[in-house]
């Protein structure tokens, strides 16, 4: 049984909105999320825009303040309580947990050479003592990310999206982290390049033993790369399961709708899908009860009133839906 690297317990992140002194409203971007990420795994987090997946990823990196619940990090060497982490611990945690961004254009400073970009974490964290040492480490990582070493003195404007994303990955890897959050890291890339970057991430996972949290809106990409998938809707976890289980038998109506919305490559397989109506409600004005009931084709009165809890079974498949057993039964019949 492998160890748990990250464990979140009822994690919530809220942002105050509106600058009024009296009417402080809290926007709950992440609401009571509990999950476990195994060491060395590739954990997928899926959801539409506004589902809070990015915020959850950043909360686990302690890039946004955690407002409720907690999260623990344990890599065998050190153990941190992310909610009450001290300054020194945080400094060390930064070496162990890193982020890869979505937009390879915004994530690289246009004023620094590729070498300086990759070397920045080393300098900031004081991981290397001399310039030679820094250079050696940069070249090592750049080679690992299949960057042309002759290009290290170039500036980012010389590179295409795929190459920039590899630079971004190299920067995240240079401090030899144990945990990397990849936030939509292939969404901005062209299809022919996307597979290349995904393969690179997989290779890093297997060769360097890095644990990934892979955030994406694209279920088919997640299906191909991740071992375990969690589906989010309006800040809540609606379903989480090992990838195979989820894809074989999705239990939540939302997960199933997500699957059927993926356009099929078969031109003759048109329109035979169950479509969701409406759009994801605004996080400032969340529905009562089950948050999905406004769009759920199977919603009953009970769903509007009572919020379902995440039910987990022995296989690690968890779902938060009042009617999933019923629905699975009708589907099987």
């Amino acid at each position, binding site marked *: 049984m492998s160890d748990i690297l990250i464990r979140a317990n009822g994690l919530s992140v809220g942002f105050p909105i509106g600058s009024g002194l009296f009417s402080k409203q809290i926007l709950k971007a992440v609401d009571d999320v509990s999950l476990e990420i195994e060491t060395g795994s590739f954990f997928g987090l899926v959801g539409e825009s506004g589902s809070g997946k990015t915020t959850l990823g950043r909360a686990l990196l302690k890039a946004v303040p955690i407002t409720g619940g907690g999260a623990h990090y344990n890599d065998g060497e050190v153990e941190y309580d992310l909610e009450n982490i001290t300054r020194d611990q945080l400094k060390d945690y930064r070496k162990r947990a890193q982020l890869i961004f979505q937009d390879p254009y915004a994530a690289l400073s246009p004023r620094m050479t590729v070498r300086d970009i990759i070397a920045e974490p080393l300098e900031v964290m004081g991981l290397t003592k001399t310039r030679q040492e820094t250079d050696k480490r940069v070249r090592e990582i750049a080679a690992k990310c299949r960057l042309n070493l002759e290009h290290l*003195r170039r500036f980012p404007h010389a590179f295409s999206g795929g190459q920039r994303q590899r630079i971004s990955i190299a920067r995240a890897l240079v401090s030899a982290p144990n945990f990397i959050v990849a936030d939509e890291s292939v969404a901005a890339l062209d299809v022919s390049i996307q597979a290349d970057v995904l393969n690179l991430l997989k290779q890093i996972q297997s060769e360097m033993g890095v644990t990934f949290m892979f955030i994406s809106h694209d279920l088919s990409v997640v299906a191909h790369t991740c071992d375990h998938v969690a589906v989010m809707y309006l800040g809540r976890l609606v379903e989480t399961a090992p990838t195979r289980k989820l894809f074989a038998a999705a239990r939540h109506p939302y997960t199933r709708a997500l699957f059927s919305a993926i356009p099929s490559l078969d031109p003759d397989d048109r329109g035979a899908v169950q479509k969701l109506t409406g759009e994801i409600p605004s996080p400032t004005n969340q529905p009562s009860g089950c948050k999905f009931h406004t769009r759920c084709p199977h919603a009953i009165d009970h769903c509007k009133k009572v919020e379902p809890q995440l039910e987990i079974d022995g296989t690690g498949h968890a779902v938060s839906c009042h009617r999933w057993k019923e629905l699975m039964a009708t589907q099987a019949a």
Partner: protein
Amino acid sequence: MTTTPDPLKPNLAETTGPHVQVVETDAGVERRSKEAYFTASQGQLIWARFKKQRSAMVAACVLAFLILTGLFAPFLSPYNPTIAGKNDDYTNGAPQIPMFCDDNGCSLRPFVHAVERERSQETNFRWVTKVNEDARNYIYFFVEGWDYKLLGVIPMDTHLFGTQEGFVHVFGTDASGKDIFSRTFHAIWTSLQVGTIGVFIAFVLALVIGGVSGYYGGWIDSVLQMITDAVRTVPAIPLFMALAAFMPPELSAEQRFFYISLILGLIGWPTLARRVRTHLLTERNQEYVLAAQLCGASSGHVIRRHLLPSFTSYIIVDLVISFPYMVLSETALSFIGLGLKDPVNSLGVMLQNVTSADVLLNYQWYFIPVIFFIALVMAFVFVGDGLRDAADPYSDNNK
């Protein structure tokens, strides 16, 4: 006996054959130019883009020329621009254009005709200047004249040109006989100085206030923005008038000069501060800044490594663009008689001198400094625009 080949000097004859010359292939040249583009820093890219804009480049040359004339004004001026250098015999004198030929023949050395002043019954006992076409005042280069300090340091008395006898007034003279040519260059220099000091004060204030406001945000930002807005709403001209009225009349020209610059600086900062703040706010939220912060980078590192470099180009652009407004404000102040006053030489003073109908009808050469003024302001505006276009990545519409 065999010699060991020097590894540093490969034997070209051996590798390429005796008759093959090492030629630069087109592909090689192209590759090198591409590599130069790829390894070009932002500053180099901005400069490359700036160079491509013809109007901005022309303006930059004009600007450089004007600044140089300002710097070397005493050297270029044949006469002291103050009352000390006046020519009593040639007040309100028309420009004298150096010539090589006249009715008496030609000379290789340029000359102007001497002028004489007389008062007689024929002229109703008024002073009248008369050009004596027979007397020539030859123009010599690098002549000795009035004493000055070049760039304020080196004492010198050599001037670019002058005459040995009589005077030469290329742009004519004013009512008290001061040489307008000399005054113009000194005026450019004065206005540039006022502008520079004004811009500098405004810039320091803007950087501090805008920087604090943009970096810390929150209530500090709100308070500072309120102050900024308050200063912005103060109408400039009435304020200038009030301040000028407040200024004791017994102030010396230098003190007056300093106060004017100070006022301009204190009025000019809000626009710049706002830009610094806006830029910091956008830059602070860039993903690469977050990436640095996620490495545990301190505020100092983020400011030094990311924020400052990101807006130096913008700040330079803003400075250049705000400069003509400083010069204009100084001119406006002096023009309405609240700033510098004759006999101080500033473009505003020179402009003020052209306001009488008499000048329009009889002494049109008073307008020559106005041309320089317009050239200076336009040059700044064009250079500023060119720099902004070059520094703005969005102006780049290549596919």
